[in-house]
């Protein structure tokens, strides 16, 4: 089981701040976890190509194995600072 956390617009799309992903394998790569997530929540599919993934304070690549003890954090395109151009 893996906890997936949503940020930004993904919270709106998912209708939740997090969910639990049931996985048969003990350890998943990011890609494998996202594929399970897509099956469980098809509404997220269109967002996933532009989403970055993190565990703890670090980004993780799609081909990296996940630490099953830590939430997988899904980060949509960022809009910090001020206006898009300001």
């Amino acid at each position, binding site marked *: 089981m893996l906890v997936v956390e949503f*940020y*930004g*617009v993904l919270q*709106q799309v998912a209708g939740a701040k997090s969910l639990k992903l049931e996985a048969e394998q003990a350890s998943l790569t990011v890609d494998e976890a996202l594929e399970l997530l897509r099956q469980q929540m098809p509404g997220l599919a269109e967002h996933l190509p*532009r*989403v*970055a993934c*993190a565990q*703890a*304070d*670090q*980004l*993780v*690549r*799609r*081909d*990296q194995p996940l630490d099953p003890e830590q939430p997988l*954090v899904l*980060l*949509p*395109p*960022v*809009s*910090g*600072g*001020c*206006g*898009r151009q*300001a």
Partner: protein
Amino acid sequence: MSWMTDNPLDLDSLLQETDDDTCGALVVFAGTVRNHHEGKAVSGMSYSAYKPMADRVLRELEQETLARYPVEQCRIMHRTGDLVIGEASVLVVVRSHHRADAFDAARYAIDTLKMRLPVWKHDMYTDGSTAYQDGVPLEDPPASGARAKED
């Protein structure tokens, strides 16, 4: 030191933190909440962040700015929570010996922040509607073993 905060940003305390008698130039950049976005009247704005990573990104961006430019001081803070029109969402403070360096470094810091900081803006419009602003996809980290490209 703090980087992400739910409290109003306090320029005076950042100026005190960066006080440096060797520096003759100070540049401050502030991003503030505007009363409009793409033609719609804005009543306020809510910023959310993935804080564990956001704190690290700002701490490292300060260090990177100090390493890339001949500046003596660099502090960056970003606000989260609900902001009203005119409030600052971000502050960048740079001090240097020469003014051109302070301008360049402050610009680098805010430009880079917008590409790296896991923060999301939720516009609240005067007509009652709300919308997450689209933004910049975060770049994947380099493959292990590979080094980040320096440009």
